[in-house]
């Protein structure tokens, strides 16, 4: 027996069982390889594990990483207050706007309900005037402000207002700029911008030759209210232009005329 033969025998004795074993391992490796190569097979095995890890991650992150992130954010915000405010502004603005729009919608739905309710009331109680008044009040539009504005320059000629709000001369300029912008943008000559909805207000614009009148209204601006308002405006304008020197009249006397005309009006 040579040295080599001896070693072979020794190997056979030592690894007898292993040759089986190695075959088994090889087979398993093959399996594993095919599983790995086959995405489908692989993911059925691995997905549950990943999901489990993720779940754990989710529940543990607030307690582990959370404080660190919060602290980092806090110092970052402190350092860059202006930038943060700047970034938040449009977002908050949009949220508030959305909220207001929603509230207005609810309000107008409420008003509409009141309106049909009004009809029902009428048939039940005959004409109960007190209740009728309350309901009318709820649905009415109110004139808040009337501005007589020079068409070209946008300068305020005269005004009437229930409550003094923002600077009227500045509103007149802004309205004129918006009006000409919109009218230019949509091209057609002799087309006038008639209505601007601004937050809770409606701004009715009535154009004449050298002037236009802007009426700022609150409440529910219905077609009926618009009819009445236009009558009022035309009424005023007729009286106003009757005098030959109307375009050089001083503001005080026109203010009085406006108050007379619009002051006690119900739409």
């Amino acid at each position, binding site marked *: 027996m040579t040295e080599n033969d001896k070693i072979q025998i020794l190997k056979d004795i030592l690894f007898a069982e292993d040759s089986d074993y190695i075959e088994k391992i090889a087979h398993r490796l093959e399996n594993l390889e095919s599983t790995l190569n086959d995405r489908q097979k692989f993911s059925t095995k691995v997905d549950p594990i990943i999901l489990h890890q993720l779940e754990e991650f989710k529940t543990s992150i607030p307690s582990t990483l959370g404080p660190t992130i919060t602290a980092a954010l806090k110092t970052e915000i402190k350092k860059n207050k202006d930038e943060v405010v700047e970034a938040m502004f449009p977002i908050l603005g949009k949220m508030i706007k959305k909220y207001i729009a929603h509230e207005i919608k609810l309000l107008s739905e409420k008003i509409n309900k009141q309106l049909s309710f009004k009809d029902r009331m009428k048939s039940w109680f005959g004409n109960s005037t007190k209740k009728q008044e309350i309901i009318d009040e709820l649905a009415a539009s109110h004139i808040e402000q009337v501005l007589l504005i020079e068409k070209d*320059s946008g300068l305020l000629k005269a005004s009437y207002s229930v409550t003094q709000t923002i600077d009227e001369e500045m509103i007149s*300029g*802004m309205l004129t*700029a918006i009006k000409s*912008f919109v*009218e230019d943008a949509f091209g057609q000559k002799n087309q006038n911008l008639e209505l601007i909805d601004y937050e809770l207000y409606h701004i009715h614009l009535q154009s004449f030759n050298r002037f236009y009148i802007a009426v700022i209204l609150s409440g529910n601006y219905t077609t009926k209210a618009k009819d009445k308002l236009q009558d009022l405006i035309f009424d005023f304008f007729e009286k106003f232009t009757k005098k030959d020197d109307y375009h050089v009249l001083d503001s005080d006397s026109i203010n009085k005329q406006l108050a007379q005309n619009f002051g006690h009006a119900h739409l």
Partner: protein
Amino acid sequence: MHISKKIVVLGHFGVGKTSLIRRFVENSFSDNYKVSIGVHIVKKEVELSEEDTVSLILWDLEGTDDISRIRDSYLLGTHGLIYVFDVSRPSTFQTINDDLKKLEKRVKGVPVKVVGNKTDLILLDELKTVLDGKEISYDYLTSAKTGEKVNDLFEQLAKMLALDAEKI
């Protein structure tokens, strides 16, 4: 007597129109660079005497490097124009004489004040040589940053418009 006057403020983008107005109206200067949109309207009352005041309704137009693109309707009925350029950027006064001619055709008979702004950024003597060389005449050299000549510009314009109004 109280009168109101419309003033249109125009000029290339970034020359300092909004800053000049802000300096005059609120007497403050902000280094925040905010791009103005379209047109912004600001009012300032100028007291000429105890009984005479003028409201200046200032139309701060969005900067456009092409004067012909300014809407006619924004220029309508204006009582005065302020043309602003940036003394530190020649591109904002390169075409000024042409621009002024075109503008005068569009707003006949309206007084125009030409203003070189941002004088804090350059040496005045050098600037004057440059402007003379290009035959550019100006009415005021201002700095919205330091406030130099800003009140003079608006107040003298107000005074002039009030005098014009009296003549009529």
